[in-house]
């Protein structure tokens, strides 16, 4: 007597594998589109990453401390302008930590020389402004070595 074998189960497995492939490629596809989010929250996050990377790279090359402590504001503005994309406006404020007897004050160092690029009004009207905080402990070079921290607040917005 001849037995008939049931092969329907095998087809189910193949279907399941094909379905998982479809889901996988869908995730990859959507992931690609997720790079440029339209949400203000995510836009801010992207700009913060960008801002931090720029400051970190400048610091790593020992340029940031030189610009800040030698008050080379024009060079600092130029460096940030070159490093950031043209459609990203920035406004950098540098603070010095002043410790009084009982309180710590942040005193703006570049009060008379604003470091910015783009229209300042954009920062007031933009729906999302990213803010990056970066701390520099001091400067050491051939001529000086001082622990004298500065706190940098870099605001970024897409123009």
């Amino acid at each position, binding site marked *: 007597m001849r037995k008939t074998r049931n092969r329907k189960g095998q087809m189910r497995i193949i279907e399941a594998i094909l379905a998982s492939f479809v889901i996988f490629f869908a995730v990859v596809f959507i992931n690609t589109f997720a790079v440029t989010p339209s949400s203000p929250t995510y836009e801010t996050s992207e700009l913060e990453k960008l801002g931090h990377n720029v400051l970190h790279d400048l610091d790593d090359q020992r340029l940031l401390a030189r610009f800040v402590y030698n008050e080379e504001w024009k060079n600092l503005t130029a460096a940030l302008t070159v490093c950031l994309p043209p459609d990203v406006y920035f406004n950098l404020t540098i603070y010095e930590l002043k410790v009084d007897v009982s309180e710590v004050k942040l005193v703006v160092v570049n009060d008379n020389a604003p470091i910015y690029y783009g229209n300042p009004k954009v920062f007031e009207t933009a729906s999302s402004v990213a803010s990056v905080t970066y701390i520099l402990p001091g400067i050491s070079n051939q001529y000086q*070595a001082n622990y004298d921290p500065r706190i940098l607040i870099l605001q970024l917005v897409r123009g």
Partner: protein
Amino acid sequence: MMVSVSTIMYSAVTYYRHERWEEYLSIIDNVKLGSQRVVEISLADYTNTTPLNNETLRDNLNQWVVDVKRAYVGFGVVLSGSGTVAFGQTLYAHQEGTPYTLQKNPSDASGTNLSTSMASTGRQLLGRFVYPLIGITSIPASTWIVYYRAWHSTVPAEILINSPSSTPAGTWTNPTDGYSSNNQYANTETDEATQQYGNYSFNVPSGATINKVEVGFEAYTAGDEKIGITCSWDNGTTWATEYTSSKLPSSDPNDVTWVDFTASTIWNIDKLSDANFRTQARGVKQGKMSTVYLDWIPVRVTYTVPPSAHMDVNTSILKSDGTIRQAITTDVANSGALTATAQTLSGTYTWAAYTVVDQTDYLEIDYYVDVTTAKAGVTAYLRIDDNALATADQTRIANIMLPSEGEENEDGLTIDWYKPESFSAASATFTLDITSAGLSGYQFTTSSLLGVRIVEVAWDVSKKELTISLIVYKEDLITVTNLKKGNFRVSVNGTDIKEEDFTVVRYYDNATYNCFMYDIYCNLFKLPNLPPNPKTFLVSVEVIDTRGIKVVAEQLHQE
């Protein structure tokens, strides 16, 4: 359904791509780089302040942890840091003690040779050296460079004297009588008649160096004749310039006259093979030709077979009672081959981190010679503790990570100056917590190092110019290449050399050190009280790098 699934997936990937932890990574980056700068600033300040203020790093660290918290208020950033110093140092092999000792100070004795026979193959122990681990909690991982001042004794020459057993060509009578000294003679009474001999059957070991090849003759003449002797190394195609004897004796001298053909070609084993090597005798007439008699025409070959060997070490941890606590490694840091000339060989070894179990233990390093081709009568030598040798030629181990014992050793700062190899170093270990991100106990260590090694001082009496060759390196032994003249201060015999009187040249040395080096050319014309032919120079070089870290290296140079 597809729309719902897409929405969920979009939300998921967007969430993970833009989660706030990326911001915390940025904070970690900032804090780590800032901490590195704090250590550098502190070391620069420490090395440039007189007297040394060894509290500067501690003060800066304390302030830094407070300021980081202020800068990132709202993130729950808590940083703590403390100074620790452990970095690559050099241990020199000293002859004091049993076993011998490893010390941080260079050789201070007249030196001694550790030796062993190379008569048999295998590893032979040359000496055991120990370093006490008192005050050391761990020896961090690093790549050691083990230097050996080593060589082997002169290899005794070996001599083969072989006779021919064939006569490839010739017209002499009874030519085979020239095979041995038996008072039976090959002879000719024909002017210019030649007789060739071959098949000398030399069995020279492979690897041998052939030092001398000589052809002998034992001959006489009935008249006034001479004999011409030559040899060929390519089966008769090329012949050496023939040697013509003076007038032969009138009877058998029973003594061999040797003719040296060493310079005729660059000899090798193949040229001495039966297929290639042959000799030739020629009767040379003087006046009326009479008979020339040849009793024997041997060939004498002098050669040496050098042994083959290299140096290496075993490492272990020794208990105070002399027993082994832990064998670490065997047969590591292999050097290049030993030669008959003393040279400074080296080998590298990657030491894995070791946590000290008991501070009464010792680090033990055993020096071996590993003989792969033995040679009786030859001795291997390891020179230790010889203060007549330059520092670079000492038997030593470099880049062992040990706590500093420099002038000051508090709070992670130290200097070790006024030596041919000097350094300034600082190190601090930090722990970072960011409570809002759930990060706790993230540890990192930052180190700053500036080292200067004076490798050579040379005096040119005609130009009155002193040349100082030095290597400047920083963390991870990376050579510093961005120094200019303004980064150097030089003094000779206690007198500062003005900046216009010295020149700094940077170059890559690919002969000995394989790294970037600096040569400082000092014009000493203007140096006051310089004798006409000075013999001693106390050279002091101060280097301040672009980070502001200072080191002073010093070397006493004697012509």
